[in-house]
């Protein structure tokens, strides 16, 4: 059974990142104000940032263990990372972006085989039409789908998303959210999503971990957070995008 567990402590400039998380197939949303350490948390899971102490387990296997001195390199962790602006390789077409990931997985596969596989993945996500275009010529929604196809091509054991919908126009955001919910349900993998937006949490039915100044100030479901917000930030987070609820009640 896939499960991503981590306890981390990392000294940052102004504060320490000190958090624990345990994700199974229900997506975990890490929310928090700017500069709370959310992206750093993802980079630490990825192995780009090295924590001082802690342990990261994926499916029970250690990816990092400060005591046992285990530090699996980023490329071998099996974690797909989709950053905020999707970071599609600008010099490659959508199809070649996906082929890059396939090529890392199976370097000796023939190029035509890779191409067909990449196109099949793009087709599954509904962006086959943009396969031969470079990222600059794709719309925001198309880019997001290509990034997702590329991440899936890697056959990840867990997914990490940084603000997956922030770069999209409000008009397409809803549609992309529902595509992503379907894919995540299908994949049945642990997923961690950093976000600012309670609508993202709602759309993916995610559980929430609130990170403030590097520390976890609250965790639970959206309903639990709403019922008993532990900090001002949580109260504001729950109140946002909710015109039916008066903000006075929260404060």
């Amino acid at each position: 059974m896939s499960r991503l567990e981590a306890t981390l402590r990392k000294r940052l400039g102004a504060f320490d990142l000190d958090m624990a998380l345990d994700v199974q197939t229900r997506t975990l949303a890490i929310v928090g104000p700017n500069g709370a350490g959310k992206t750093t948390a993802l980079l630490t899971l990825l192995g780009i940032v090295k924590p001082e102490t802690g342990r990261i387990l994926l499916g029970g296997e250690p990816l990092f263990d400060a005591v046992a001195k285990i530090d699996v390199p980023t490329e071998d962790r099996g974690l797909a990372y989709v950053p905020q602006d999707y970071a599609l390789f600008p010099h490659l077409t959508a199809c070649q972006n996906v082929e890059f990931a396939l090529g890392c997985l199976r370097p000796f596969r023939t190029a035509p085989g890779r191409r067909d596989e990449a196109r099949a993945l793009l087709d599954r996500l509904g962006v086959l039409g943009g396969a031969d275009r470079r990222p600059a010529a794709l719309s925001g929604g198309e880019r997001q789908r290509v990034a997702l196809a590329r991440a899936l091509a890697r056959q990840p054991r867990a997914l990490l998303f940084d603000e997956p919908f922030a770069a999209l126009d409000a008009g397409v955001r809803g549609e992309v959210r529902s595509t992503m919910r379907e894919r995540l349900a299908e994949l049945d993998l642990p997923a961690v999503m950093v976000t600012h937006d309670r609508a993202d949490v709602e759309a993916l039915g995610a559980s929430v971990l609130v990170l403030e100044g590097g520390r976890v100030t609250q965790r639970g479901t959206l309903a639990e957070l709403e019922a008993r917000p532990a900090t001002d930030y949580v109260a504001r987070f729950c109140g946002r995008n909710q015109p039916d609820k008066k903000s006075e009640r929260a404060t």
Partner: protein
Amino acid sequence: MRTRRRRWFGAAAGVLAAALVALLALPTISLFVTASPAGILDGLRHPVVLPALVLSLVTTTVGLALVVGLGTPLAWWLSRNSGGHVRAVETLVALPVVIPPAVAGIALLLTFGRQGLLGPVLDGLGWSISFSTTAVVLAQVFVSAPFYVQGATAAFRGLDPTLLVVARSLGASQARAFFRIAIPLARPGLFAGAAMAWARALGEFGATLMFAGNLQGKTQTLPLAIYTALESDVRAAQALSLLLVVVAFGLLLVLRRGHR
């Protein structure tokens, strides 16, 4: 009143600027207008020309291969790290740009020459570098490498680090991320740096003269051939100069186009 003062300032600035442009352009223009096609062809038949042309092409090609081969890893390292030691290395690498060429020649002699720092070691290996074609290449690498390393470092620093993180997360080794993502994206900057370095190597004169000498077919590159030809045949020196100007100008045009 105010407009008149502004007009006065604009006119003065325009005259001064035009003076500098004239000073920079006139010598090059003179090279062309004082030449006749027959004179150029005659000049190019001078016996120093062909050996120097071949030697310059060979040495600058080998030198550029060395500069790119050694400079690319250095530029990558400089771009991926920060701190005092990185700044120290960057300063060291920039040093040959500000050192006068004659000083560079002496410094190279005192390093690789028979009496130099590495002299005994090289002597033991039966390798005499000074006043050989190897010395020409070494002098060119010394003066031109900083141009490539600085250009390549800037190109690598301009890359979005997230792209490299994503490449690694997709399963790419550091080498694969470097060759498939970093190099293609930095390519325009790498080319510009290599072109500047090559132009500097092609024009190298002072350090070569001091460290490698002026031996036809062995160490006499195009700039040294110009210097030699000037004593006997001004037309040969002029023809060679025109050749170098045309090459340099062509390179500049290609670089300008690349920037757009």
